[in-house]
């Protein structure tokens, strides 16, 4: 087996006295979908924020493609190939759908100190941008204003932006949140299709989606990764059952409040 694309070792972060993540070890293999599940407040979003570089861990290391990125700022990690989608939709509301995706392409196409040539006429940007939009099924909306999209379409746009950058690892924070059944099903197909070219770290509450997609699953409770393994191992794990799945069974969220 190859070295994993992303490794974390002992990743810890506390806010004041409250532990958000504690000693998290994680291995995301190349071309795999790795799901992180756990009750609300288990530290999943904090984990993603640390991986993306928006929060600095108190201790621990993050290694991406063989390189220690623990101290790199967000934009530098993104340039190495880590793309993040947000739990709460984060797009450029004042711009068109195409412009949103175009910026994602531009981020990876050399630097942006080009002051003269019109970006929207640059095939090197519009080509991949349109391709990403087509891939998520938003091609027909390219010229629309991003703020006018429906909620499901916003999520699709987020994925398109994550695709459009030539990133190796997608950090997807609840990509299906708030989607209808039909949209969700489409998204599952889409994500599965991505495995060819990308690795995905997925946070998701819908257990059906998780078990349908994930190659590996890590279960987090109170900031700790209590189990990690193949879906069938996780399903059979006594600890997980007790701590999490067993309480209400696979399904919607389980609050730990």
């Amino acid at each position, binding site marked *: 087996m190859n070295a994993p694309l992303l490794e974390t070792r002992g990743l810890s972060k506390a806010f004041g006295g409250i532990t958000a993540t504690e000693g998290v070890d994680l291995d995301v293999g190349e071309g795999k979908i790795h799901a992180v599940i756990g009750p609300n407040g288990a530290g999943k979003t904090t984990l993603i924020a640390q991986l*993306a570089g*928006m929060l600095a861990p108190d201790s621990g290391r993050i290694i991406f493609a063989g390189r220690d990125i623990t101290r790199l*700022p*967000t*934009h*530098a990690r*993104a*340039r190495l190939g880590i*793309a*993040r989608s*947000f739990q709460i939709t*984060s*797009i*450029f*509301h*004042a*711009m068109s759908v195409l*412009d949103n995706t*175009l*910026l*994602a392409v*531009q*981020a*990876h196409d050399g630097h*942006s*100190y*080009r*002051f*003269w*040539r*019109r*970006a*929207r006429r*640059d095939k090197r*940007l519009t080509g991949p941008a349109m391709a990403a939009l087509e891939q998520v099924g938003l091609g027909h909306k390219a010229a629309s204003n991003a703020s006018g999209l429906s909620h499901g379409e916003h999520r699709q746009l987020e994925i398109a*932006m994550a695709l459009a*950058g030539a990133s190796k690892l997608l950090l997807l924070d609840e990509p299906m949140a708030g989607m209808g059944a039909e949209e969700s099903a489409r998204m599952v197909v889409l994500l599965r299709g991505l495995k060819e070219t990308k690795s995905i770290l997925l946070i998701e509450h819908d257990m059906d989606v998780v078990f349908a997609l994930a190659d590996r699953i890590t279960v987090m409770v109170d900031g700790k990764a209590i189990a990690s393994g193949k879906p069938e191992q996780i399903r059979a794990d006594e600890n997980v059952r007790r701590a999490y799945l067993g309480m209400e069974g696979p399904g919607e969220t389980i609050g730990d409040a």
Partner: protein
Amino acid sequence: MHPPVRLGVRIAVLLALAVLPALTGALDQPFLLDLALRIMILATAAVSLNLILGYGGMISFGHAAYIGIGAYAVGIPAYYGEYSGYVQLPLAIGAGALFALVTGYICLRTKGVYFIMITLAFAQMAYFAFVSIEEYGGDDGLVIEQRSEFTGIIDMESTHQFYYVVLVFLVGALYLVSRIVNARFGMAVQGAKDNDQRMQSLGFDTFRYRLACYVIAGAMAAAAGWLMGNYNYFFSPEMMGWTHSGELIFMVVLGGAGSLFGPLYGAIVLIILEEQLSSATVYWPLILGAILIAVVLFARGGLEGMLAKLERRK
């Protein structure tokens, strides 16, 4: 198909500015030319402010400092007998860019209202620094004996030639900004205005793009200051005063922040308004202030926004 109202107005305004010298000659109204010069110079500065404020979301309240810096770049060399435009203009642009680089490096680490106040404070710092330099007239500033020299090419002392120099700068600034905002760089800057965190997670070092944009705007405004020094035959710290920065912001907002021609329209309306009010009554700030408040409270989107609405309605 909507009638292209905005395009029509743009062409009309630029044409009017282009033929004005001939008209004022025929009508014997040299005063109009003077007014148009002032409008165009301040509009050039407002266009540069619009680049950072309208497109970049950086509300700089110290933009007048660059006008002053540009004017000193005419006046100080002239004080030592150096009149060459080939020295003065690059000096103005370089000094403006340098001031923007140094102050921007600190200002842009802050956000929101901190940014507004810090740009204001740095402009005030430049103001007091020049006030304290007795050699260059201190508080009162100094008279400039003659305009920048471009021997054999342009005679800046000729009103008409100077007029067209100013017009070229204005049109050049508009064209430059239109290229910049539609290029990759401009996309990055506008993205950073819209959603900074997202830009970073896409891989943009937004601080550096902002800083570069801030420096470009500073250099452009200093070029406008170079024109202003030449126009006035005079420079003084007063040109950097923060009320002038406020006027520049008003021009941008009145015309429509983030629209290419907005600052020009704003400059035309504000300066003509000031001209009319101040000749009507000494209490004109009272009326202008009330108008300003009313514009903010009731008119959104500025003049370009109104034209765009008109375009859609027809």
